[in-house]
């Protein structure tokens, strides 16, 4: 066992400074977990940004210019296949960030990032992120741990897509969306569900009807309402819980924004 090198200016942090008044409360889970003095320094590089519904934040194989720490809403990460078909492989809400390649020294993304529930984010450009990671061990650790948690989500999606029936996958996906929505009702189009699950629209209708007949959800006119959360959890494959457990272990926040109410 080898001790880490001592930092010369260790642990003498000012107590009860007048800087405690925060201009606004940070809702992003990764930032909120940082020590206050690290966050105060990083704030200089953070700019509020809107996440309008359906906006493409970066395209597949596109350049990533900034990371977005999501404050609200939900962003899909989508793989595009040669025939132009798209498949969702990951989801980011306020537990995470969009633009992982930048945290690992790359500026290209294999996947498209598209807003699926409108919201807001805090944006940090590549240079500020690099500086921030250079200065803050806590930020580096958060980003590393988030990368592992996100990897767990994609891994679980890969396994789930190979094995589980559409209705179970739909239930899983609705739980993930529900975790990130501000309430029990959220917009959701057929097209999006079809892309998410990579099945035809009729297959989506059948799966949604199965859940609706069991009175777990109410789905109409582009909106979904979760009416029986425990029932939906029971209808989902275990993949939801596996990924959520990994998020909780790595980041301590249960795999998503804390459930509203």
């Amino acid at each position, binding site marked *: 066992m*080898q001790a880490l090198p001592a930092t010369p200016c260790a642990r003498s942090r000012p107590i009860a400074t007048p800087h405690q008044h925060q201009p606004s409360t940070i809702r992003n889970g990764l930032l909120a977990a940082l020590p206050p003095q690290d966050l105060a320094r990083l704030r200089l590089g953070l700019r509020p940004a809107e996440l309008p519904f359906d906006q493409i934040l970066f395209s597949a194989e596109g350049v990533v210019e900034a990371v977005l720490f999501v404050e609200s809403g939900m962003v899909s990460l989508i793989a595009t296949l040669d025939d132009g078909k798209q*498949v969702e492989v990951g989801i980011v809400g306020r537990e995470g960030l969009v633009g992982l390649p930048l945290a690992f020294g790359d500026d290209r993304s294999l996947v498209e990032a598209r807003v699926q529930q409108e919201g807001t984010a805090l944006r940090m450009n590549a240079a500020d992120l690099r500086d921030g990671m250079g200065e803050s061990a806590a930020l580096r650790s958060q980003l590393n741990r988030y990368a592992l948690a996100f990897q*767990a989500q*994609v891994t679980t999606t890969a396994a789930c897509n190979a094995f589980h029936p559409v209705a179970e996958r739909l239930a899983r996906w609705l739980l993930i969306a529900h975790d990130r929505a501000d309430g029990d009702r959220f917009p959701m189009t057929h097209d999006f569900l079809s892309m998410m699950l990579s099945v035809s629209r009729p297959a989506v209708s059948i799966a949604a009807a199965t859940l609706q007949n069991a009175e777990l959800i109410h789905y109409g006119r582009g909106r979904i309402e979760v009416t029986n959360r425990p029932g939906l959890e029971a209808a989902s494959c275990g993949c939801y819980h*596996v990924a959520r457990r990994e998020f909780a272990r790595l980041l301590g926040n249960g795999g998503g924004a804390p459930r509203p109410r």
Partner: protein
Amino acid sequence: MPPEDAAVRNGLLAALPPEELERLRPRLRAVELPFDQTLFPADGVVEAVLFPEGGMVSLLATLEGGDQVEVGIVGREGLIGLPLVFGDNRSLVEARVQMEGTALRIGAAALRDAMEASAALRLVLNRYALAFQALVTMTAACNARHALEQRLARWLLIAHDRAGADEFAMTHEFISMMLGVRRPGVSLAAGVLQKAGLIRYVRGRMAVTDRPGLEAAACECYHVARREFARLLGTGAAPPG
């Protein structure tokens, strides 16, 4: 520890500047990767990183019912034990040897020290993490969309890249797990590729008899992931040749 002048076959280590590799060498220990050995179980502790020098290791997700499905593959282009690179010591997935080989092993503490000391090592490990993420991403998309024969062809190409020969051992059970389907489904898909003259599969031995044909039969996910590996690491998704 490998002799000073032994050539390193692992792509990540070989990409390091010579002086950085020399500094790392005393920490590396040569180990065997025996067929079918579990290197760490699902949800198990990861004590060391392994840089394969040959052979192939599967990363397997375990579902609730105990079914397993492969989500990633590592050969000498990569490493096993990514969580350690990110400051964690647990793995969600099982790592199991699928083609025997050898690896260079470095313990967790030594890896941490080496990463602190070497920007080149940090860079190559970060880039590998992104490339591996691309592989898992394509596997997720592929599992959702593509026909079983296409997925089998893709998987055989990946295996062929790492086998270093046109013929290699491959059990039915392994293929079944790889693709997340029951054994009859495997027989059917393998039958299709065999009738097309692309492979010969007899008694647990797989022979690739028409590589270009197999590439044409595979979905593009193979090429997408390979391109990402080449872009990030310059090696292609597989050892050259």
